């Protein structure tokens, strides 16, 4: 028999960053809220005080979802069998208080004006025939200008570091000249880069390109945020992605929104609470959620509003598992839209250079101590004579290299990563090689989606989420183009040798890390015929359920999602606070 808890205004599935943002906005004004987190509690002190341990965090994934409990299955296309990702892996969803935003890389972006009007923009500039067959790319139903104030607020709340490139239309040297106009700059100056980044930037400039430092959610100096959280500046320690930050330089829910929310007295996080499904009343509205605790005891938490605020993949799964008489295919899925427009990201490195005899200090710093160009991203270059749409960032390989997972990047003359000759290779060159990396767009297609797996189940007996995903011709052509550009830049960087060049994108492989940016599946839009939610993440067919995070993105631009996740959540939180609560259960305009 499930334990029934007392009613709250809002319950969230997961206690990651979007839940914390909502709580920080709503709870101080008197809203009562409970977040159900499947992992344990963790805080900067004591948990990250002593965490410079590659084996524990990078090899054994201490901060990630424990795959013993559940994983995700994958297949390249609907004709193939799906198998579980048994070990990490293509992406690294987080588990524990704060979620993936504790171990993120903190690469912080705003999407471009054209990203939000993707279909309209391509059709206006090139005509509808330019969109590939089977590609379901859409406009977001929200514009960059509408989101700008929320981007701004989010960046200042988290103490972002970077150099603005465009303030109200005025171009600023050293910033990203392709960025859409911002109201003001970043609160903190850009992070330092390493020799590889500096070399990359110089080469790009010599080719007439426009390099700039990665904007970041890592504070480059000591920072006290508008809510009174004190954070240290970055120590460039080299243990960042997959790690928690011991001085709170890297922004996370633990050092930004959670303290504000918890201090309100109206917010509670229940840890080791695994949500099984959203319950639906006879009126078709959500009545609360059912979860199990660490002892396997079932609980019911009633609430007026349910926020689906877990990781992208889990958000899709929860909606699909929340089947009822009123919503037989799951909440949000009355028109079969949940799981559609699942997209990802292109990350592989096309080219690797070797600078014999030079130390590049690649083990210092973090994933943001790098230089980037946007010249070949989005529609920043003319596609009229090209056989693809979209683009990719190119950047100097992220730093914080760890020996345990990088020594096999170098090979002996027979291509082996072991033996006496290889040992000499790593002795001489482990800190002398570096890549140029892509971070490219992923477009949605009809044969690319997530649904429930017919064969595999989680610890609690529920079906795993099945991902059907592979590269398509448009991405292959785009990769071919940017790989060639990367090679040009690499040559201008004067390596003693180019030790690897991939002219064609390697086959998608679920075992190789790409990025933790699966997006879409519960996308926002202007009509229930083409989307699951409105631009506030409010589910069309169940208006007291809101979805947050990158599951809302109709397609994935060539940039990491967190900045936009923050802006979209801020906007939704404001709408819930100022309008939804006044007229509950109604769709917001």
């Amino acid at each position: 028999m499930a334990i029934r808890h007392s009613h709250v205004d809002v319950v969230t599935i997961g206690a990651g960053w979007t839940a914390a943002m909502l709580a920080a906005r709503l709870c101080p004004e008197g809203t009562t809220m409970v977040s159900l987190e499947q992992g344990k509690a963790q805080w900067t002190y004591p948990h990250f005080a002593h965490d410079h341990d590659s084996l524990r965090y990078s090899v054994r994934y201490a901060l990630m979802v424990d795959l013993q409990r559940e994983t995700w299955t994958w297949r390249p296309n609907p004709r193939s069998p799906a198998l579980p990702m048994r070990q990490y892996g293509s992406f690294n969803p987080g588990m524990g208080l704060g979620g993936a935003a504790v171990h993120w890389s903190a690469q912080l972006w705003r999407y471009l004006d054209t990203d939000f009007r993707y279909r309209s923009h391509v059709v206006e500039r090139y005509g509808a025939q330019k969109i590939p067959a089977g590609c379901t790319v859409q406009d977001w139903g929200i514009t960059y200008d509408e989101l700008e104030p929320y981007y701004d607020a989010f960046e200042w709340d988290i103490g972002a570091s970077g150099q603005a490139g465009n303030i109200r239309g005025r171009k600023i040297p050293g910033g990203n000249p392709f960025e859409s106009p911002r109201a003001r700059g970043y609160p903190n100056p850009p992070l330092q880069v390493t020799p590889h980044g500096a070399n990359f930037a110089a080469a790009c400039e010599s080719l007439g390109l426009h390099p700039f430092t990665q904007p970041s959610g890592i504070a480059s100096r000591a920072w006290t945020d508008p809510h009174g959280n004190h954070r240290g500046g970055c120590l460039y320690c080299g243990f960042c992605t997959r790690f928690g930050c011991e001085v709170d330089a890297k922004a996370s829910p633990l050092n930004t929104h959670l303290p504000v929310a918890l201090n309100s007295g109206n917010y509670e996080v229940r840890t080791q609470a695994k949500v099984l499904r959203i319950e639906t009343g006879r009126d078709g509205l959500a009545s609360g959620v059912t979860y199990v605790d660490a002892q396997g005891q079932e609980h019911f938490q009633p609430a007026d509003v349910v926020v689906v605020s877990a990781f992208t993949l889990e958000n899709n799964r929860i909606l699909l598992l929340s089947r009822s008489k009123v919503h037989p295919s799951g909440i949000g899925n009355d028109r079969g839209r949940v799981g559609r427009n699942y997209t990802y990201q292109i990350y592989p490195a096309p080219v690797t250079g070797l600078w014999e005899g030079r130390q590049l200090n690649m083990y210092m710093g973090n994933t943001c101590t790098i230089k980037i160009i946007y010249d070949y991203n989005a529609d920043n270059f003319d596609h009229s004579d090209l056989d693809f749409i979209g683009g990719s960032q190119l950047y100097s390989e992220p730093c914080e290299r760890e020996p345990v997972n990088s020594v096999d990047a170098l090979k002996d003359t027979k291509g082996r990563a072991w033996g006496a000759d290889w040992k000499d290779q790593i002795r001489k060159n482990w800190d002398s090689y570096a890549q140029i990396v892509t971070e490219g767009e992923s477009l949605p297609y009809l044969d690319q989606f997530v649904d429930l797996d017919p064969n595999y189940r989680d610890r609690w007996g529920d079906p795993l989420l099945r991902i059907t995903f592979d590269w398509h011709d448009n991405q292959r052509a785009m990769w071919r183009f940017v790989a060639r550009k990367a090679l040009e830049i690499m040559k201008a960087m004067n390596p003693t040798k180019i030790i690897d060049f991939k002219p064609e994108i390697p086959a998608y492989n679920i075992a190789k890390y790409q990025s933790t940016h699966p997006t879409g599946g519960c996308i926002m839009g202007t009509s229930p015929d083409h989307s699951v939610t409105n631009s506030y993440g409010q589910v069309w067919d169940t208006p007291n359920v809101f979805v947050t995070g990158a599951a809302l993105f109709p397609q994935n631009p060539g940039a990491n999602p967190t900045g936009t996740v923050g802006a979209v959540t801020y906007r939704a939180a404001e709408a819930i606070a100022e309008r939804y609560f006044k007229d509950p259960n109604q769709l917001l305009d």
Partner: protein
Amino acid sequence: MQTDDGQARRARLTRRRLLQSAGVAAASIGVGGTLAACGENENAGQARVGTDTDARELPAPPPAQQPLLCVVTSFFTRAEAETVEAIAARLIPGDENDPGAREACVPAYIDHKLASFESFATPTYFKPPFAKPAMHPTGPQPGAKSTILVDAKELPRYGFQGSSTPQDSYRKGLATLDKVSKKKYGARFAALPEPTQTKLLADLEDGKVAGFKKSKAFFKMVLEDVYEGMFSDPIYGGNRDLAGWKLVGYPGAQRAYTEYELMHGPQHKRVQGLRDMPAMNPGVPQDHAILPLAGTRRTEER
């Protein structure tokens, strides 16, 4: 009851292992100088500064005290231990002046790891149906029970799909290795001349050994474990005297680098492991720093 038994067990084992290895750490702190000092030369007024700084070329540290616990006693039988040691010594060869996997206690690391984890050390989903290679394309197969057929050409794209635990894979793999070694070369692996061992390992990696069907997967597992043992923090039993990190010129667990160091190389850094680095808040017991705590509301915790 659905609990995190595996996780709790793992946490307990981790704690136990850390306590055990505390003696080792104390010993290496005592000699302090197992650690190379990077960048000292700049202050000494010498010419080599900036990006030329190279940890490996700096004065050799004083000799380390004999390491403790560099013995294989927990999981492997004596014969298995000899085979693992022979493999490790070929994968990262070395001698006392230029340590390789054997000198860095990598076999002991693997032994500890296998003894500490009944199943996998890294998070692993280990439920059927397990993949079985087919010589042709296959469909979704809903309702598959113990096995699911997958086109052998596509199977590598799905990553690890093994159906046995590392303990079983080592037991079976080491036995098979000795069997094929005896058949082909007339002696068990550990007794072969080094060049023959190297040749046989290359054949394993290429999947070219008759009578050893899963040789590729076995080789990959062992190689990954050797990397872990050579290049992980010494608190886990390998990387003795920080040999792996010194080999590649990695200073190890450092608290911080300055902006100057990012561009110009490490200054005044000694190569060190976690136990040589003070925690950010040394007042908090180490176990708390390393093992997750349960809890709910921050206000109550503080």
